[in-house]
C-alpha cells in the first residue's frame, strides 16, 4: 500500500511537469494547427540554458526567468524562420519541418553542450526526502511540481485576463473571425511558439534537476505526445489530465510491470498504451471529434 501511494505521488508530480510541456504543445496546435514533433528538443534547450546560467552563478529562480526570456526570443525566431512560410501546407510538410527543426536543434545542442550528463552543482534541492504522514516525498519532485503548477496557473491567467491571451484564444477558436476583428494571426502564431518554448524550457529545467541533463531529457519531452493524445489534441484541461495520467502510468509500469518484463518497460509503456488507446478513442477524452466515416 505504501509503495502504491508513493508511486502514485511520484507519478502525479512528474506528471505535473509533463502537463506543463503538454500545455505548450496543445497551444501551438490550437493556435496554428502545427503538430510539433520537436517538443523534446525544446525541453532539452530549456534544460541546458538554465544549467548554463546556473553554472555561471545566477540563482536558480533567476536562471529560470532568463530561460523564459531566451525561450521567447527563440520561439519567435523559429516561428518566423521556419514555420511562417508553411501555413496552409499539407500536414506532412508541416510535421516534417518540425522534425527537421528537431534535428537541427539536437545537432546544435550536441555541438554546444556535448553529450555528457551534466548536473546542477551545487544541487538546488536537498537530497533528503521529507515526510507527510507516512509518505516520503523527494524534495526535487515536490518543488518541481509546485513550480510547474505555478507556471501553469500563470499561463492560464494570461489566457483568461490579458488582451494578448484573449486574442490567442480567439484565433484558436475561429481564425477567420479573429482576423476580421483585427487580431494579428502572425502575432498569435509567434506568441504560441514563444509560450511553447517557455513551458518546455522550464519543464526541461525541472526534469534536469531530477536525474541530471543529457539527451534522454529530449525523450522525456516526447512523452508529451501520449499525454496530448490521451487528453485530446486541442484541449488544455486535457493536456493537464493527460500529462498527469502519463506520469502516473509510467511510474506504475516502472514499479509493477518491471518484474514481469525486465528492462525498459517504464520508457516504452506510455507509447504502447497510446497505440492501444488510439484504436479505441482516437480523439482522446476532450478533443474535438471530427466525424469522418472510414
Amino acid at each position: 500500500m505504501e509503495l502504491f501511494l508513493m508511486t502514485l505521488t511520484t507519478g502525479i508530480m512528474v506528471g505535473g511537469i509533463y502537463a506543463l510541456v503538454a500545455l505548450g504543445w496543445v497551444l501551438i496546435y490550437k493556435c496554428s494547427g502545427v503538430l510539433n514533433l520537436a517538443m523534446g528538443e525544446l525541453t532539452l534547450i530549456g534544460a541546458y540554458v538554465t544549467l548554463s546560467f546556473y553554472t555561471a552563478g545566477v540563482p536558480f529562480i533567476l536562471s529560470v526567468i532568463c530561460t523564459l526570456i531566451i525561450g521567447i526570443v527563440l520561439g519567435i525566431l523559429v516561428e518566423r524562420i521556419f514555420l511562417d512560410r508553411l501555413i496552409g501546407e499539407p500536414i506532412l510538410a508541416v510535421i516534417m519541418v518540425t522534425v527537421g527543426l528537431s534535428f537541427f536543434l539536437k545537432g546544435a545542442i550536441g555541438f554546444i553542450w556535448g553529450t555528457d550528463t551534466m548536473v546542477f552543482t551545487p544541487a538546488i534541492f536537498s537530497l533528503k526526502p521529507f515526510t507527510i504522514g507516512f509518505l516520503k516525498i523527494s524534495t526535487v519532485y515536490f518543488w518541481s511540481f509546485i513550480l510547474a503548477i505555478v507556471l501553469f496557473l500563470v499561463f492560464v491567467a494570461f489566457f483568461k485576463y490579458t488582451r494578448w491571451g484573449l486574442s490567442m484564444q480567439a484565433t484558436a477558436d475561429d481564425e477567420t473571425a479573429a482576423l476580421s476583428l483585427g487580431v494579428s494571426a502572425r502575432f498569435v502564431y509567434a506568441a504560441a511558439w514563444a509560450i511553447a518554448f517557455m513551458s518546455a524550457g522550464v519543464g526541461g529545467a525541472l526534469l534536469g534537476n531530477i536525474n541530471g541533463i543529457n539527451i534522454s531529457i529530449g525523450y522525456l519531452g516526447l512523452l508529451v505526445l501520449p499525454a496530448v493524445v490521451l487528453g485530446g489534441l486541442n484541449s488544455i484541461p486535457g493536456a493537464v489530465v493527460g500529462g498527469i495520467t502519463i506520469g502516473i502510468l509510467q511510474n506504475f509500469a516502472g514499479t509493477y510491470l518491471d518484474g514481469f518484463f525486465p528492462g525498459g518497460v517504464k520508457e516504452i509503456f506510455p507509447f504502447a498504451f497510446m497505440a492501444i488507446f488510439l484504436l479505441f478513442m482516437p480523439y482522446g477524452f476532450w478533443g474535438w471529434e471530427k466525424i469522418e466515416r472510414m
Partner: protein
Amino acid sequence: MTRVWLPCGDYHQYYAEDQGWWQTNVVKGKMIFLLLIVFVIIPLFAQYEIIIDGYWLGVANMIGYTALGALGVQLLIGYAGLITLGHAAFIAVGAYTSTLLILRFPWPQFAIDWGIAYPISIIIAGLVAGLWSVLFGLPSARVKGFYLILTTMAAQFITVDFVLTQYVSKIGGRGQAFSLPPGTIKIGPWFIDTDIKVYFLMIILLTLTVMVMANLLRSRVGRAWIAIRDNDIAAETLGINIVWYKLLNFFVAGFMGGIAGAFWVSNCAALSPEHFPWFWSLWLVGVILIGGGGIDGAIFGSIFMVMVMELLQMAAIPLAEYYPKILFDFAFIKDAAFGLAICAFLIYEPRGISYRWWQIKNYFNLWPFSY
C-alpha cells in the same frame, strides 16, 4: 498522367502500350544504359580502382540500403498517404529475422553447401517484417494523419527499444550484438565478404524491388492505393476496400523494409539495435521528402542525402587541423545539416529533386526550340 514524354504525333493504340514501361526506344535505350552502368561499368571501375575505390563502393552500398528502405517509405507515404515515422522498426525486424535464421536455425547440410540459407532467410525476413508491419498498420483502419504517425512511432519504440533490445538481443546469451563473422553469409558458391559482392547483392535486390514496385503501381492494387491517397472517401464509394488495401500497403512496405534489413546484415560485422534508431526512420522520411515523388524520387533522395553527408565529412577532415573538435562532433553536424536540408527543401523546393529532374528532362526534350 504518364510521366513519359512522347514526341509530337506519337499515339498509343492500346492501353497496354500506354501502361508500358519503356514506351519509346529512347526510353528503352536510356534504361538499358542505366542498367549497364550499375551492373557493368561501376563494378569494372571498382575492379581496377578507376575513380571508384573501396571507399566509394561502400558509399554506393549505403546509398542502396537507404534506397531500399526509402522505397518502402515511399510506398506508404507517397502512394497511399499513410505517414509513417517508424519504418526502421520493420527494417530491424527483417535484419534480426535474417540473422537469427542464419545463426540459430538448424539448416540441413545441403542448404549450407549450396548456399541457399541466406537467400531463404531474406524472403522469410521480408515476410516476418511485412506481418509485423501489418500488426502496427491495424490502427490505420480507424485513424489517419497525425494519429497514424503516433502509432508508427509507437511501433518504433516498442520494436527496437523494447522487444529487440531487451529480448531478442539476449538470445544465445550474447548480450548486446550478434556478431556475423565473414563467411557466415553465403549465396550459392559465393561468400558475401567483400564490398564488390555486397554491391552486387545490393544492386540485384534494388533492381528487383524497383521492378516489383513499378509493376504493382501500374496494376489494380497500385491504382487503388493512389485512389486512397487522393481521397479515401471517394475511393470507398468506388468499391475499394480501404482497410484491405491499406493493410496490403503496410505489408508490401514492411516486406521491402525486411529485405533492406536482411541485406544490411551482409554489410555489417555485427548487428545491434543501435543500427535502427528512431533517427533512421526519420532519415528515410527525409530522404523521400528531399527526393520527391515516385520511385526515382526515393533513389534521387538516397543519392543526395548520402553524398551530401560524405561531402560534409570530406570537408570536415581538412578543417580538423585547425579545429580538432569538429571530427568528434561530426554526428551533430550531420544531424543539423539533415534538419536544415529537410526544412530548406520543404520551404523552397516542396516537390523535391525528382520534380526538378522531370523539368530538366522536359526542357531538353524540346531543346533548342522550346516554346
